[in-house]
């Protein structure tokens, strides 16, 4: 037990995580590309045309994956934030700042693809539906996190302030989600209603899942890559960084 704990903390040090991340990220990037190709192929060439929505429904393959990732990444950030506050590890702060831009990007993509889907399906780019509203708020939470950590120049302080914000935010997300949901369903907008495919075709489901996997791999790959850069930036004065082959060369 004790032994395993020590092992974990070994990888929690930037010095040993740096090469590990360097070895891992290309694999995840490759997996992302493979899943993405498979998902696109399924989505565009195998999955049938939807009875109600025609070809427009194919947006689902990016939309759902992006939405899921945006929510999931926020939870991961909160997880690292908690680790950082409890164990005071340096790596956790680096992980949160490596993940945040990607999470914000997915939140943006969810909004963007949703809006592009909404126009043909509902006749409006935007409606104040519970899900959409809470996704918008999630996007703002991401931006707040990024702006806050960018505004503090001492990385250690930035990490800890960001960690507090992330935890406060993650506690609030369910509250926000349910409040918005209740708000919206109490007096539903008259002209708009969600028309969803009642039961999804099997191939659609698979396409969606493959794309979700692809996005997942992409997020891991880019986060690992970015955390390496952040380690370089923050540990610039240590000897092990100066001894790295890519710096010496």
């Amino acid at each position: 037990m004790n032994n395993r704990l020590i092992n974990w903390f070994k990888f929690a040090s930037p010095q040993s995580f740096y090469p590990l991340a360097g070895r891992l990220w290309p694999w995840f990037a490759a997996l992302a590309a493979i899943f993405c190709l498979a998902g696109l192929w399924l989505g565009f060439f195998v999955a049938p045309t939807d009875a109600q929505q025609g070809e427009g429904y194919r947006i689902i393959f990016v939309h759902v994956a992006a939405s899921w990732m945006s929510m999931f990444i926020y939870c991961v950030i909160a997880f690292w934030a908690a680790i950082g506050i409890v164990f005071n590890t340096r790596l956790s702060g680096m992980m949160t700042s490596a993940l945040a831009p990607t999470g914000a990007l997915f939140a943006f993509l969810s909004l963007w693809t949703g809006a592009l889907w909404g126009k043909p399906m509902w006749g409006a780019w935007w409606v104040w539906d519970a899900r959409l509203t809470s996704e918008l708020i999630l996007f703002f939470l991401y931006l707040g996190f990024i702006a806050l950590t960018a505004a503090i120049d001492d990385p250690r302080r930035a990490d800890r302030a960001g960690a507090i914000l992330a935890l406060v935010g993650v506690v609030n997300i369910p509250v926000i989600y349910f409040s918005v949901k209740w708000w919206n369903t109490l007096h539903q907008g008259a002209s708009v209603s969600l028309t969803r495919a009642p039961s999804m075709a099997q191939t659609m489901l698979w396409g969606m899942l493959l794309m979700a996997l692809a996005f997942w791999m992409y997020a891991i790959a880019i986060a690992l890559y970015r955390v390496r850069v952040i380690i370089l930036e923050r540990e610039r004065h240590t000897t092990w960084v100066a001894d790295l082959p890519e710096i010496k060369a």
Partner: protein
Amino acid sequence: MNWNSPAEFFAMGGYALYVWGSFGVTALCMIVEPLLARKRRCDAVNSLRREIAANKEDQ
């Protein structure tokens, strides 16, 4: 196979703007983000090299 011709594929049953708008922007973002990350890494590595070179001169 759903499509009889490339033109039909690109027309997306009249939803071209929306479908390609979504997929295009998504693809764009996923290309630009790694490029930005790479640029950041190059900057970091370069400034580190310069600093180390400067330190060597000092000594």
